[in-house]
């Protein structure tokens, strides 16, 4: 029984954490993306509307990031203890960005003359947080130097041409998500503007997906082998084909001014890109050498948390959906719903 648990529990937890991080990327992705669009918004009133559209939900969105961190700490303490010091500076900067944009939600609506300051804090904080998450993603793909269960690299190993590329890619991705959100939640001038921005963001995102997908296997022979060796190539070849199809469908959906499809198809693009990363690195949780089984906490820890997670997670998903349902519908300019 114990042997069986040692194999299966880390797998379960890898899936749970991957799911948690994905939900985070999707949910905080669109509200960070709103921050990226914020200063370019067509009017002051549009900014108010943008902010009001996420004010009741942003806290819940960000909680998934905390879950990702805490669950990694519990289920794979070695990964937590290696990856976080390796990404020290980008993570601190991400936290600073999240602080600035988080307080802007409350401060901005209370400020009169200093409102522009919190506009900048919201936009700047969102950009900083997104860029740092993108850099962290690039650093993860490139792997971490580990000696004797500790991070053994330098303070700036995360800063490479590749990680800068993934930072821009994530910025573009969050922009696209935010456009999809605005298309569902706004009307009038802002809605037209969001459709226009979405098209530009989509072209950029498609370009980045292509470049990152080619660069990753080129710099990493193990990833290349995972994708291109026989019979894997047969199994995985649909992934790029489906991705291309989704890009085309998304472009059409924007042209036809569909309401929910742009966000749904953007989410699908994120699922595909995310799956691509998972396929490339499974079962390594600290690339290039440490697997989920190597980094796992003992079954006593993983099962203790899983027993609580199984009943609680559906309840969380339930009231999260309810929260979005309460604040459903388009946000009208100047309509304060409190």
């Amino acid at each position, binding site marked *: 029984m114990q042997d069986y648990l040692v194999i299966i529990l880390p797998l379960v937890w890898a899936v749970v954490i991957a799911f948690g991080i994905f939900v985070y990327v999707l949910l905080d992705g669109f509200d960070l993306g709103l921050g990226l669009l914020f200063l370019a918004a067509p009017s002051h*009133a549009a900014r108010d509307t943008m902010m*009001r559209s996420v*004010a*009741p939900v942003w*806290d*819940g969105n*960000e*909680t998934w990031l905390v*879950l990702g*961190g*805490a*669950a990694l*700490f*519990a*289920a794979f*303490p070695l990964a*937590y*203890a*290696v*990856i*976080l*010091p390796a*990404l*020290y*500076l980008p*993570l*601190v*900067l991400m*936290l*600073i960005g999240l*602080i600035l944009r*988080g*307080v802007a*939600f*409350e*401060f901005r*609506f*209370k400020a009169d003359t200093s409102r522009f300051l919190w506009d900048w804090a919201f936009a700047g904080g969102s950009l900083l947080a997104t860029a740092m998450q993108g850099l962290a993603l690039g650093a993860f793909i490139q792997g971490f130097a580990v000696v004797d269960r*500790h*991070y053994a690299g330098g*303070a700036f190993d995360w800063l490479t041409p590749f990680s800068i590329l993934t930072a821009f890619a994530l910025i573009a991705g969050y922009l696209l998500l935010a456009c999809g959100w605005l298309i569902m939640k706004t009307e009038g001038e802002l809605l037209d503007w969001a459709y226009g921005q979405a098209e530009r963001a989509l072209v950029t995102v498609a370009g980045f997906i292509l470049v990152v997908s080619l660069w990753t296997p080129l710099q990493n022979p193990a990833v290349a082998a995972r994708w291109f060796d026989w019979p894997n190539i047969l199994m995985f070849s649909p992934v790029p084909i489906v991705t291309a199809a989704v890009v085309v469908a998304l472009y059409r959906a924007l042209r036809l001014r569909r309401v929910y499809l742009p966000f749904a198809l953007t989410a699908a693009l994120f699922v595909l890109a995310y799956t691509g990363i998972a396929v490339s690195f499974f079962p390594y949780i600290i690339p290039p050498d440490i697997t989920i089984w190597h980094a796992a*906490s*003992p079954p*006593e*820890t993983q099962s*203790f*948390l899983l027993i*609580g*997670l199984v009943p*609680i*997670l559906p309840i*969380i998903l339930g*009231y*999260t959906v309810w*929260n979005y349902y*309460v*604040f459903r519908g388009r946000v009208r300019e*100047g309509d*304060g719903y*409190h």
Partner: protein
Amino acid sequence: MEALDPVLLSRIQFGFTISFHILFPAFTIGLAAWLAVLELLWWLRDRAIYGEISRLWTKVFAVSFGMGVVSGIVLSYEFGTNWSVLSERAGNILGPLLSYEVLTAFFLEAGFIGVMLWGRDRVPRPVHVLSACIVALGTLISAFWILSANSWMQTPQGYVLQDGVFHPIDWTAIVFNPSFPYRFMHMVAAAFLTTAFVVGGIGAWYLLSGRRADHGRIMVGMAVSIIVWLAPLQIVLGDMHGLNVRDHQPAKLAAMEGHWETQRGAPLILVAWPDMAREINHFELAIPRIGSLILTHSWDGEITGLKAFAPQDRPYAPIVFWSFRLMVGVGMLMILVAALSAWLFLRKRLFDSRWFLRLLVLCSPLGFVAVIAGWVTAEVGRQPWVVYGLVRTSDAVSPVPGGSVAASLILFVLVYGVIFGAGLYYIAKVIRQGSAGSLPEPEPMAPRRPMAAADYGD
């Protein structure tokens, strides 16, 4: 870069970020509960004034809660960024406790605070009241898990050590470790007192300024009715917690009391400056035997002194000694306020004794002072251990260069300084507007009128 010691810098950074953070939960735990009570009263008794007060303080809550959330996320990452060796060795135990906090508290708060702040007109009345109650419950559940994790590091049990890594064997023993019940009760009581003193102080200011006196009376009345029994109870809880420290962390207790020698019938040292190098107290002022009486509840009980521990195993006594006295001093001041308010209440002079109302205004930040002083006592007092008696703080630090930590520390100080100043400013603004006759009407001429939780245009 050798001059930048990552251990010291990481300790300063963690101390700074957690002290900043604790100000907000210390305030919002009590405030959430009070808002839930106001919403319930408003709903059940149908008196508009409860709703008006609730709306005003919901704005204050929104700002404080937001600052608590963003400063809290930092802490959940600092375990890994700054204390990775601790994380690797104790993650099997601390990880699930923190994860349960996220699952049972953070999501609950986040899931219902949107409705509480923004959903008044979007859900039926009982659902809105229930949301306020759920947020209040969430803050208490959060305190439960995080204090359990902190307490386990102070009084670890329920584990086995394998190759320096903690493995759990008994989760009940881990969660309900020896210092946890006392720390939890003491902290929750502190949080409620903190809120009561802020609310009482603001209410007193409303009464003194004579503007929303009707609001002021309810605030002062409700605050005082908490203070009057909770301030004395807190002394009892603190005493119980102190006895627990005596049993489980005797070196911390010796530093708190300023005792160097192990002795029977130990004095109560009122004032002193402990000298770590020479192992004596300077400027000592003491009352014979009272120390033993308080700590062992007997005249000649034995108290362990600092010299019973190797020099490298002693906490830095001057900080522990004085932060403890600051906390107790504030506690005594709270008792005085409690006694005065009971006396004035019985003489039916509570709301018109201007000197007492002025005293309440002056006392509004007392809770924060006591909370910070108490945590400094607890955390400096447990040094040099991060897991008491088992893992040294100096061994727990991440392999991160001192320069990185120095840079992050400077950033945190700058950013926290700005947002703390701004947060205080906006809270003061909300409270000033609340006292200005009636709640602010939406200005018909100003389409840019902000619409946030903090700006219920009534």
